[in-house]
């Protein structure tokens, strides 16, 4: 492993010059591996958020396996009722709970360890966490009780038990408290001059994620509060078109929080794994600025076939504005591997055009996980996303399996894999526990990535033949008019099922060593053992 190079510029603070910031005595420790100052209160929150995140990842993963084995038409495991229940459960556990708990942990790490600052408010930290945890448990309970088979989008007039909406509001409020606590920590760090100049790039990326999260959560409140009131008959009507518009301000924007957090994790892991330096601060920060300004407008591509909004609204929000955010992703997709290349060439791996790539630490799951995440996000997720965000193509692909084929490449192959890669450093550095089963950890990113790629391609190709998303029965048996697809869709649905099963094996290969490490792992007394 390459430990933190004290000359690293920008991605992380220069550790040699690190003071102790604004920490009162006895409230911090110095990491023996990185030299970073770790606030003990923040460390507690990072740990507890990470543990909850992994629990919800496992729950969502079990649901994913059941769904994959149902969409695989030759198996068709679940009945219709449990299929839609598991679709709801899977979406919320994976897209909301696993990701949000992990992101709050990342925000607290970035604001405290990288800015040498104490956490702004421990009480707010507990309040936010309590809201999120109670909301999450309520949410899973009400879904499993069969009172909320409305899927993640819960489009009105589908109506769930009021607990469902209340639980989502609680999770959103808790997350907002966490985000405000993060921004307050950034503020006090600047006020107390715990750093000089600009914040490190990873913190800037985290600020970007936090800003997008504020917009996301305001939209969430804007639609979930009236829907909750409707569910308890306080108001008699929620307009379905307005619901869709505001809900996607929550549903899509929350995934843009993931993008910003994931890119920050790429920069962080580039530094932690090979000592990569940011090539150009201005370029990378401007790319994050493009996210802040434009990425949320892309929510409009969910409404490209909605009749209520005009062509002007659709074209402006999904073309001109969205492409500026796509440009930002392309910039990061270039600068991150370029920084890795420069770092490896400086270490002497100069043979040919790609000698550096072969010499990269592919046995380090922190590196392989982040680099595979970058490739899957960029090539499969990015290309499918841009095409689906085009009005002419969207009208063909809307509500087909091509859509989940796209977002499983971005959110699972991209964000989830990057967060898993990060965990290979979080556990030894923050929990200070060694990973057991290291061979399994080394293989895990490859197994998970292969599964997700297969599943995503299976979905995308089946969807290209017109197979609808979220449909329990691909044959639509019993329908008034017979529905027939090209027989080859069953091959692609089989690829989906095999890929989903393989990805679940990859998920278990992550969860088992992580749980064993956290609860039974050998204590890391000094420096983290090299991967």
């Amino acid at each position, binding site marked *: 492993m390459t430990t933190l190079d004290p000359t690293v510029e920008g991605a992380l603070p220069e550790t040699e010059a690190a003071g102790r910031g604004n920490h009162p005595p006895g409230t911090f420790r110095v990491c023996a591996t990185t030299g970073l100052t770790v606030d003990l209160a923040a460390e507690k929150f990072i740990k507890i958020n990470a543990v909850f995140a992994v629990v919800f990842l496992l729950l969502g993963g079990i649901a994913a396996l059941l769904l994959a084995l149902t969409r695989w038409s030759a198996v068709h495991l679940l009945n219709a009722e449990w299929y839609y229940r598991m679709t709801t459960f899977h979406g919320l556990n994976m897209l909301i709970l696993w990701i949000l708990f992990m992101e709050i942990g990342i925000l607290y790490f970035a604001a405290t360890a990288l800015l040498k600052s104490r956490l702004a408010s421990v009480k707010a930290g507990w309040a936010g966490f309590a809201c999120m945890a109670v909301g999450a448990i309520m949410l899973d309970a009400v879904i499993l009780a069969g009172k909320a088979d409305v899927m993640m989008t819960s489009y009105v007039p589908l109506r769930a038990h009021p607990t469902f909406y209340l639980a989502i509001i609680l999770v959103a409020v808790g997350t907002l408290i966490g985000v405000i606590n993060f*921004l307050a920590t*950034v*503020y006090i760090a600047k006020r107390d001059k715990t750093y000089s100049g*600009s*914040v490190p790039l990873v913190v*800037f990326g985290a*600020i*970007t994620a936090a*800003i*997008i999260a*504020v*917009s996301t959560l*305001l*939209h969430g409140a*804007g639609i979930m509060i009236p829907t909750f009131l409707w569910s308890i008959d306080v108001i008699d009507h929620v*307009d379905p*078109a*307005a619901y869709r*518009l*505001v809900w996607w*301000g929550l549903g899509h*924007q929350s995934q843009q929080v993931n993008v910003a957090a994931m890119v920050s994790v790429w920069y962080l892991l580039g530094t932690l794994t090979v000592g990569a330096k940011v090539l150009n601060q*201005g370029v990378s*920060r*401007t790319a994050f*600025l493009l996210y*802040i*300004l*434009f990425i*949320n*407008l892309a*929510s*409009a591509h969910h*409404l490209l076939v909605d009749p*209520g*909004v*005009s062509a002007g*609204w659709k074209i*402006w*929000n999904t073309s001109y*504005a969205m492409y500026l955010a796509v440009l930002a992703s392309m910039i990061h997709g270039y600068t991150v591997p370029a920084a890795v290349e420069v770092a490896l060439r400086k270490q002497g791996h100069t043979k040919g055009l790609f000698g550096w790539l072969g010499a990269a630490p592919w046995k380090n799951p922190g590196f392989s996980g982040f680099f595979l995440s970058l490739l899957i996000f960029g090539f499969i997720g990015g290309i499918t996303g841009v095409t689906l965000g085009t009005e002419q193509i969207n009208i063909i692909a809307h509500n087909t399996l091509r859509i989940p084929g796209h977002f499983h490449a971005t959110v699972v192959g991209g964000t989830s894999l990057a967060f898993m890669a990060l965990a290979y450093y979080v556990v030894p550095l923050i929990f200070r526990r060694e990973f057991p089963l290291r061979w399994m950890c080394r293989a895990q990113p490859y197994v998970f990535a292969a599964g997700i790629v297969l599943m995503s391609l299976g979905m995308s190709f089946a969807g290209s033949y017109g197979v609808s998303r979220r449909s329990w029965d691909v044959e639509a048996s019993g329908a008034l008019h017979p529905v027939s697809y090209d027989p080859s869709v069953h091959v692609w649905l089989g690829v989906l099922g095999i890929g989903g099963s393989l990805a679940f094996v990859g998920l278990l290969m992550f969860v088992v060593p992580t749980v064993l490490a956290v609860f039974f792992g050998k204590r890391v007394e000094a420096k983290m053992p090299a991967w």
Partner: protein
Amino acid sequence: MSESNDPPVHWLERMLDNTWLLLALGVLIPAISYTLWGLLELANLKAATLP
């Protein structure tokens, strides 16, 4: 009054260092371009007439 010898900071860098300005822009731009504009269009839809 002493004069500072620090080189002037580029306006883009000052903007990138201003978290609160970025927060305001990040909330206002989607609120106006996506949400308010979209809701305004929906609010002004004429009721469909029966064929």
